[in-house]
């Protein structure tokens, strides 16, 4: 069959700048560039380009750029070129459209409709360079009140297990298998340095990363890959993954070719077999089942680790979250519909779930109304793009955020949405040794550390501007937010006033 698919991208090479050093050719796992000796010129296979931009970044002379394929559509807003290309692909393959990373559609991003306050005259802003500016956060259940001996400075109430974050950001779940060990290790090293946590995803904990266990959240998902008592006790916190923002209601499928010896050992499945995560946990068909699993896991770790439950933000999120808290979740994790993924059906990614901002506001309010907000911490995920998003999330009521795409971009990810091919030129979403070695975790970790430290500085600056020097006082402080360009309903759900009020 003649393939009707058009190239998506066009590689532009500035001949005046190209010195034919071949760095581009050697950098591309998709074989886009070929230096032809006879022609003394590059042959370019545009169709293979996924716009990962590795060659653009690596080119010593800046001779490369990638642009959209110049083909125009017919001008219809209905049958756009993109829509037609999807049909071309499906009529060619007969398959479900697969994609990666987060929802790219132009849905409203509420973060960008929220503005922060700052102190002027009536109270002073605080200079983070002069005063301590605290961003430490604890996650886990907390008693409502504390019994102490004031004279002897002793706590009488038994404290439930909690984890300490020096920065209000954790790295969201990405399994070894979906990302390379070097990528996961970068995050683990960064988490250790930053005093925060990475998440194993559902891929188990590789033995090389066990020494980062104190900074690991070990995930238990529907596939139960790599889960045993040792694993559950190897991390700082256990997370039950019910759903993922990018693909609510959908399981996972890691193709057998990515299950090499290391992935196989870590996931505890045979080498070369597909790793299938069922859509639901087949032992959780209702909330009381969740409670059983939560307490099974708490038993397994002798109540020494908090147990988090992660769900995709869906329509009835507030009620579900309330049920999760009552089922014993110490941390409620909400993943918004813009969250990323290594692979998801395009239609699911682009059409299912709700924005994290609204989910967060609704859940925080509901838990407060039911006076159970203290019983669990609230962590949100799904396109935390900057420190401002973090500050807004905390002000809306989150204890901390999970972030994955940001750190991945720090590692080199260019959001080309081609993770599923396994040919990630940045050594992130691949298991090919010649590609994974492109990501030196020492550099990766440093870049992630730099990013999070920079974010944390910015968080501190914004907090200082508000006259706040501990993030405790930002949490749920919605008075520090004002909406712009939002309607009454949106403002009502977010629980913020409009700018000018």
């Amino acid at each position, binding site marked *: 069959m003649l393939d009707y698919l058009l190239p998506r991208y066009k590689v532009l090479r500035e001949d005046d700048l190209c*010195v034919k050093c071949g*760095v581009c050719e050697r950098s591309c796992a998709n074989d886009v560039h070929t230096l032809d000796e006879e022609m003394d010129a590059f042959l370019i296979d545009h169709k293979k380009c996924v716009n990962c931009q590795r060659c653009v970044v690596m080119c*010593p*002379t800046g001779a490369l750029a990638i642009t959209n394929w110049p083909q125009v559509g017919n001008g219809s807003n209905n049958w756009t070129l993109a829509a037609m290309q999807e049909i071309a692909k499906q009529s060619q393959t007969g398959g479900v459209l697969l994609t990666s990373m987060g929802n790219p559609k132009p849905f409203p991003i509420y973060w960008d409709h929220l503005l922060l306050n700052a102190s002027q005259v009536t109270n002073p802003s605080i200079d983070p360079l002069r005063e301590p500016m605290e961003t430490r956060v604890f996650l886990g259940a907390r008693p409502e009140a504390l019994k102490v001996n004031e004279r002897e400075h002793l706590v009488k109430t038994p404290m439930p297990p909690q984890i300490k974050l020096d920065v209000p950001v954790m790295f969201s779940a990405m399994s070894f298998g979906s990302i390379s060990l070097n990528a996961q290790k970068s995050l683990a090293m960064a988490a250790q340095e930053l005093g925060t946590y990475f998440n194993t995803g559902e891929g188990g904990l590789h033995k090389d990363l066990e020494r980062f266990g104190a900074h690991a959240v070990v995930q238990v998902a529907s596939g139960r890959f790599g889960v045993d008592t040792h694993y559950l006790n190897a991390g700082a916190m256990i997370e039950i993954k019910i759903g993922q923002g990018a693909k609510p209601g959908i399981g996972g499928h890691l193709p057998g070719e990515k299950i090499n010896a290391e992935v196989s050992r870590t996931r505890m499945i045979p080498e070369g077999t597909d790793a299938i995560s069922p859509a639901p946990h087949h032992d959780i068909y209702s909330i009381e089942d969740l409670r059983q699993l939560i307490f099974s896991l708490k038993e397994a770790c002798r109540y020494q680790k908090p147990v988090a439950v992660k769900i995709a933000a869906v329509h009835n999120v507030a009620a579900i979250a309330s049920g999760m808290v009552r089922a014993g979740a110490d941390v409620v994790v909400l993943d918004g519909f813009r969250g990323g993924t290594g692979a998801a059906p395009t239609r699911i990614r682009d059409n299912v779930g709700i924005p994290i901002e609204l989910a967060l506001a609704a859940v925080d309010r509901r838990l407060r109304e039911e006076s159970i907000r203290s019983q669990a911490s609230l962590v949100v995920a799904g396109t935390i793009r900057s420190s401002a998003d973090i500050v807004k999330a905390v002000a809306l009521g989150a204890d901390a955020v999970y972030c994955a795409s940001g750190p991945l971009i720090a590692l080199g990810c260019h959001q080309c949405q081609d993770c599923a091919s396994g040919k990630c030129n940045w050594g992130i979403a691949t298991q090919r040794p010649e590609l994974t070695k492109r990501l030196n975790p020492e*550099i990766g970790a440093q870049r992630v550390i730099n990013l999070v430290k920079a974010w944390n500085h910015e968080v501190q600056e914004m907090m200082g501007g508000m006259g706040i020097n501990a993030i405790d006082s930002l949490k749920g402080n919605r008075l520090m937010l004002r909406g712009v360009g939002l309607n009454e309903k949106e403002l009502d759900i977010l629980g913020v006033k409009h700018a000018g009020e």
Partner: protein
Amino acid sequence: MKRIYAIEAWCVDCKRCEVACKTFHSKSRNTVKALKAEFPPPQNRIRVEGGRQLSIAVNCRHCAAPKCVEGCVSGAMTKDPVTGVVSTNPEKCVGCRTCVSMCPFGCVRIEETFPKAVAFKCDLCGDVLGQPGEPSCVTACPNNALIYIESEG
């Protein structure tokens, strides 16, 4: 002394080090001009061996007892007693290739310039002979496959 070490585990065979080395050792120090317009074309002192699966960048080890210096009949090849940098003086070099036959790593090569061939090799990007700068290959390496660190000798 500070030495450049190549780390195979991280070498990705991009050869940006070679390009950077050529640029640094060109007249213009502009990559485009140096590689497209200069004659003789600038030579890289560091070379990447291997391919995509396994590769390593090799350049002068600046040995404690350099064989190239031992073999040099012209006094062109010297090891700076203070910095430890082994460098060659093109004025004195006559291109006899004794150094080529002596270097255990293949890190000295001969440039066929007129009127005589001369040896060239890594000088740690010293601007002044014997004064090591920040080696340009290390700066250009995208993956810490070249590290420039204080060695134990």
